[in-house]
């Protein structure tokens, strides 16, 4: 079982997880909206494949970082809505800080003459 605590071996997956967590902070939100939102915020740079989005969502749910519930969506049809748990929020903070540190360091290295 890959763990996000080891960013070296699982950078990409860990990155997707933190992005999902960030989007889920917006409140109860279903998978389709998460994909839309990621695409919008990143100005179409990040295209998330459903093939990785849903396994990631369910993995996060199993770890207890997000909670899922079936409820009526904006179209009236039932959808599975995700919300962040307390533990998820903590994880998001940790991983965000991690990412910031890492990206600052990478940027610094790349900017040296």
């Amino acid at each position, binding site marked *: 079982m890959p763990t996000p605590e080891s960013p070296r071996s699982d950078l990409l997956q860990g990155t997707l997880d933190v992005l999902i967590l960030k989007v889920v902070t917006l409140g109860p939100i*279903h*998978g*389709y909206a998460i*994909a839309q939102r990621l695409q919008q915020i990143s100005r179409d740079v990040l295209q998330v494949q*459903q*093939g990785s989005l*849903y*396994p*990631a969502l*369910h*993995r996060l*749910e*199993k770890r207890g970082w997000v909670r*899922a519930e*079936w409820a009526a*969506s904006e*179209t009236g*049809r*039932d*959808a*599975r809505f995700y919300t962040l748990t307390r533990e998820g929020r903590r994880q998001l903070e940790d991983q965000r800080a991690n990412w910031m540190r890492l990206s600052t360091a990478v940027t610094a290295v790349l900017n040296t003459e």
Partner: protein
Amino acid sequence: MKWLRRRDPRVRDELRYHRDRMIEDYVAEGMDRGEAERRAFLEFGNVAHLEEAVRDARGRWWDDFRLDLRYALRTLRRSPGFSLAAILLLALGIGANAGIFSVINAVMLRPLAVSEPERLILVSRLAPDDRPLAVPFPFFERLRDTLQSVSGITAIGTAQQTVVVEGEDELVDTDHVSGSYFDVLGVRPVAGRLLSPADDVVAPEAPAAVISDGYWQRRFGRDPGAIGKAIQVRDRVFTIVGVTPPAFQSFRPDRTPAVMLPLQLMLRDDERNGLGWNNFVVIARLEPGATVAQVNAEVQTLYGHLVQLQAEREREKDRPAILRQRAAATAAPDGFNPFRYDYGRSLIVLMGSVGLVLLLACVNLAGLLLARAVARQREIAIRLAIGAGRGRLVRQLLTESLVLAAIGGAGGLLIAGRLAARLISVILSGRDVAISVAPDWRVAAFTAAIAVAACLVAGLVPALTAVRSTVSPALKTGSARRSGRLGKALVVAQLAISMVLLVGAALFIATLVKLHAVDRGFDAGGVLVATVRTARPYSAARIPLVKDALLERLKAVPGVQSASAMQVLPVGGGLWARDVQVEGYRFRDDESETVGFNAVAPAYFATLGTPLLAGREFDARDTMASPKVAIVNARFAQYFFGAVPAIGRHIASAGVTYEIVGVASDAKYQGLRDAIIKTMYIPWTQRAGDPQPSAFNYVIRSAAGDPRRFVPDLRRVVNGADPALRLRTARSYDDVIDESIRTERIMATLGGVFGLLALIVAAIGIFGLLAFQVARRTNELGVRIALGAGRASLVGLVLRDVAIMVGGGVAVGSVVAAMTGGIARSLLFDLTPTDPLVFAAAAGALTLTALVAAWLPARRAANIDPLVALRHE
């Protein structure tokens, strides 16, 4: 099955929602619907594929298990006959195991309801078989004053006696406890206070007593006013100062005393100082950080000194026996627990037997599952062909046996409750003790564990065999032959297990039969045994009058042929032994001077039906003042006097010389199992110190009919002899004897039930296998008949199979039974665990059963119509 679906994450619905939203968005952007659907499909990919990926991410175990469970329930519901049989089989097997375990748990594993029972230590003498024995009071004093590795130590004596509260007398159990008792055990009162060292002195200002919660409830209705009331025991008056909590009974699990009294006040002087009065149980609490081994080392030293001292006071020839005594300190979370030694071995043998019963049930079930697996070969082959993993399929098939085991286990718990309650009531019969066998976490864990084990034993081999069958039809026959061989092996295993169980059953039943048939030397039929108690002690002058009055009244009851009394009831478990000197006989140095001893009333031998060989019975002329006389049994006369007449010879015991006036024929004394011992009888009037009437057992021989018909009137008769006399117990002598062989009866009954169960299960196993084989070989058998084979030779074909299987089963079972029988040796009577007759009987029963089970399939084989058979398939 709704709960199975409720936790389903509905992955497919979620993915479909996503896809549909995509399509709608494309349509909203102006794409036509067909195009939108194509785009979405390209982008989204295969929903089923993605669903699998999501399920993988979730962890599949639980999901798969749920699916398997649903599938298993559906399959089992489709064959209700098989399911019912399997569940019944498992419920019986698991139930028997959980039931016996419940009893073991209740009488051997459960600690006392005290604080930190794991730190309790029992200091005891040890019998040759390591059973703990009580110790003398001076030993306790030494332990108390010198032991370093214990934080507290207490001594307890026990009695059953009449207590008087507010003028009403009642016979109750009393514990006589040293002052530290409640402190050592860590028991807190529910009302008032408990006894303390200040209460346990020779002359306290106000003697204090503590009562149990049960007695408080029964006698006072939990009235707080009970505290402060007076309670009279013997000739002493105590004040009730407190009540023990309901969970706490006593320092030993087989006692529920009503009253606890300070030990110093109840000690007799001979007990206080004598090293031979082994009447006290000593329990200590381990000092934190100390070990049992440390305490034991200290105990060895102290006890060594004590026996040395005791030996010096005794005669030379008695010293080796005294010095041979052993003592030990042992961990005792269950306190002083005689059950462990009375029933430990029987319970272990029973546990082994029910283990075999369960194994038998599992092997039988494995046979059934195997047959089903063969029948489902096509389905399994298809699954394998379309890519199902073998491991996955095995799991699915195992889920089926797990469901069976789970339902069987639940049913088993019901059976277990009944079995355990029944068994414990037989064990406790005649005792005023309640032991709960309600299942606790230990029983639940045990039941779950054996249910899972049963599932694996029954399900694993059939499941593995099933998935070994391959897609290629060319190999199919090979696998069928293999599963056929496996089926036979399973039947042989069942026969072997049945053989072991049957040998056990035969051993225990034979033991009981032999015990019943053994010559007792007296005739218990038609005799009633009554014991009495006295509301308050009689003065020395009144004792003989009351005893005589009671015996006269008993004789006068209409329908009574004769009545008598004795101090120790033969075959009642008690033994009174004394050292004697015999006129004209010189004991060798290594020869025991001990003989059985008893004090009996007139007409004793006539009432019990023991013939007198010479001389006379005791009668009215033998009084306290008349010359001391004795009657001896034939063994005694033969041993000491040989062919010379015993009448007129003299025996001395405890400083009194008796003249022999009669010789009686031999009779059993302590128990049916014990050999005849040299025994002498003296008149009850000439017993030193003339004991209270309650010290005797009264026996009444009915002129005709069941002696228990006297019981309703007996209370009045006893009370009529003297107002302070009470009837205590009245049982037929046959019941008393039955009770003395309670363990043997339990073993014979349960052994017989298990043996019968084994026969039934083995018969089902053989029948199932043969019926299946005959059905499958219909073709072949038809060809044989068509080619001219006789019907008899076809029956022979089937029976040869049976003979080989029975032969194998009996052989394997006999070896196992012979190897494990030793553990039951001490439970047998007049039999060795490898008695050839017993083995022959077991083998005979098994063979007969196998033949009966084989008869129907064999007849079917013989009656096959070749034309029909050839058209078969």
